[in-house]
């Protein structure tokens, strides 16, 4: 766990998050809260309130996030992917820590949303 969450890193994190569009930002925030859990593409698109198809979410957004090493994708079966935030990323691990320490309530909300009926 990173403990030296100094101002400079938080500044860089804010700048990074601000540079992303709302879909990508929502993905990173949701995934940071539920870390270390991973979600499937369909779960993710429900979690961030994405209205399009999860396939287009994958091609247009998730693959780009993966290219920039912000998220990691494990292919479980040909159709099922496990998506989680990349905790090795120099800034996103700060985000994950922040969510872990200060985001307990939001985390509960996200996890409740993921529960199956």
């Amino acid at each position, binding site marked *: 766990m990173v403990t030296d969450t100094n101002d400079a890193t938080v500044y*860089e994190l804010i*700048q*990074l998050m*601000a*540079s*992303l*569009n709302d879909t*990508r930002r929502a993905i990173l925030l949701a995934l940071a809260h539920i870390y270390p859990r991973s979600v499937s593409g369909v779960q993710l698109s429900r979690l961030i309130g994405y209205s*399009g198809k999860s*396939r*287009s*979410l994958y*091609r*247009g957004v998730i693959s*780009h996030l993966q*290219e*920039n*090493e*912000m998220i990691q994708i494990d292919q479980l079966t040909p159709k099922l992917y496990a998506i989680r935030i990349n905790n090795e*990323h*120099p*800034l996103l691990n700060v985000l994950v820590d922040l969510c872990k320490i200060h985001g307990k309530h939001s985390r509960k909300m996200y996890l409740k949303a993921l529960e199956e009926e």
Partner: protein
Amino acid sequence: MENELLLEAKALYKDRIRIALSAFIIVFSFTFFVYYTTGIAGIGEHYPGHGITQGLQVVAAFNNFGLLVAVALMVFAFRFWSWAFLPGPASLFTMSVLKGILGPYALIQQSIGKRFKVTLDNGLSFSLRCSIEEKGTDEWFTYRLMSNKLQNGNLRDVALRHGFSLKGNRFVASVSNDELHHRTLLLAKAMIVATASL
């Protein structure tokens, strides 16, 4: 928040596709007319031989190949045109975003193939390529940002910290049109950081 210029570009792009399609139909009918009526380059009336050989001669006639080549040329011309050029409002949008964030001293050159080359006043330069995606994604208009080759020890860290990945000593990322503004800024900043900490 939808950008006016972008909406205009989108509409114009669709219009252009329609215009191209109607032009294609007209040109196609004209070529068809030229090749398959007697008179201009028309199909001959008499072929020597009987039965199958005569049929084969008609199939292998100059006219059929001519039509094929003409259609291939039309398709090629359309492909080239859509590869090379951006709709006016789209390139205006790109230019004004880049000018807006990089200031009046940055040199921006637009070249064929929907590419832009940006040289900052401190000598650093990067390129961006615009593509109009249609299949499989919701985003119709995206950019590929790519910096020039950089030399430094911890490039990967700098790249990741600014939301880019490192490929062959270049910072690269695919960004959507609503991210162009801020991520271009971050790219410029990342390049300055990378060259400053040599």
